[in-house]
């Protein structure tokens, strides 16, 4: 199978529409699908609902879609790095649903795994639990969290092959494998497309079945918080 597309914009062709739900991989600015985000900006789709752990910074990552007011709602665990986000949120222009980080990751995994809901202790007794079903298991209280299914998943990997098999690098893996599974369609951008057969089958992180389209990109890979020793 050859799932390779020549560019992010071509890979997005026919897959974007106003009001769509998007799941994006990445943690902070690490392992984010830079080119796909940039292409979504160019395509000018609006009212996006985006599940992504963070919202980028003002001029990079998901942040660039906030700048253009393309985002209606974010589902995130932490958005502290984005001043424009704060402004839009506090002025009521932007909806925000906070999910605990592990709950967000598990909601994506569940969405991809045909599990419509799961119970977790995370958030019990907090505002996160308000309005959610509570249930006891062995005398301990848990809340029901529902799966997240996206119209489109956008992920960034290190290497990929034309079958869509993906390998991630270090902590740039993060939400990407989980996001990849929960999209009705998934586009992966990679640093290098390698020939089929060159990835060790024991070490493929995302099997090709989850990936519909794949592009090779140029990645800035911006460092958010450079911290050095000495």
């Amino acid at each position, binding site marked *: 199978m050859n799932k390779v597309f020549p560019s992010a914009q071509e890979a997005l062709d026919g897959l974007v529409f106003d009001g769509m739900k998007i799941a994006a991989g990445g*943690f*902070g600015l690490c392992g984010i699908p830079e080119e796909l985000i940039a292409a979504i900006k160019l395509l000018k789709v609006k009212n996006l609902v985006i599940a992504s752990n963070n919202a980028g910074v003002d001029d990079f990552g998901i942040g660039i879609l906030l700048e253009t007011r393309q985002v209606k709602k974010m589902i995130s665990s932490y*958005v502290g790095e984005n001043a424009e986000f704060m402004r839009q949120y506090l002025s009521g222009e932007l909806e925000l649903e906070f999910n605990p980080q*592990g709950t967000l990751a*598990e909601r994506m995994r569940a969405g991809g795994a045909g599990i419509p809901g799961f119970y977790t202790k995370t958030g019990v007794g*907090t505002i996160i639990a308000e309005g959610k079903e509570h249930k006891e298991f062995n005398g301990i209280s848990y809340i029901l969290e529902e799966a997240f299914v996206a119209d489109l998943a956008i992920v960034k990997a290190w290497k990929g092959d034309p079958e869509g098999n993906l390998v991630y690098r270090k*902590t740039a893996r993060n939400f990407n494998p989980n996001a990849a599974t929960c999209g009705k369609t998934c586009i992966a951008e990679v640093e290098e497309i390698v020939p089929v057969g060159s990835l060790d089958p024991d070490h493929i992180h995302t099997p090709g079945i989850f990936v519909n389209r794949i592009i090779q990109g140029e990645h800035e890979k911006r460092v958010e918080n450079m911290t050095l*020793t000495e």
Partner: protein
Amino acid sequence: MWDRNEMAARAAKEIRDGMYVNLGIGIPTLVSNFIPKNLDVTLQSENGMLGMGPFPKERYVDPDLINAGKQTITELDKTSYFSSADSFAMIRGGHIDMAILGAMEVSENGDLANWMIPGKLVKGMGGAMDLVSGVKRVIVIMDHTNKKGDSKLLKKCTLPLTGRGVVDSLITNYGMFEIISEGIKIIEIADGASLEQIKAATEGNLVI
């Protein structure tokens, strides 16, 4: 009275050989500087890494290698990487021995507030809610009082909670405390601090 480093050093004394530990952002990050070299301790970073190494020298900076505070870090021989779902399976499933976190408020029954000031601070809980509900022992490091001098060890938290009854131990500039069923038990008083000072600075029920 303990300073930031002394609080971190006191927390490090709670770490045992062979433990898997998650350190929060801020003072908790300093704890790693005080873990005795003869202990074999493995640091987990919730963005998907077990076996976190120190900050890199400049030439080893790798944008694909950061911790949960988005700081550049390094890997060790024992390091492994995994997805966010797998990372929180590890955390939620009780496989991490200890989490050391910062806080805004702690109540006498161990409620923790450390993620939100309504109308002011809208950052998010990140992985804190998962950590406090999943990790075997939760230690909080924070100043005993806020800038206005009001106690942060309360009868009841005023801020939105991160978790209910989740704090096991507490380290402040005044000393080390444990949450027991009767309240906040004093374990150790910092050099230069006094019992009277602690009493005056603690709203929650103290157990002496």
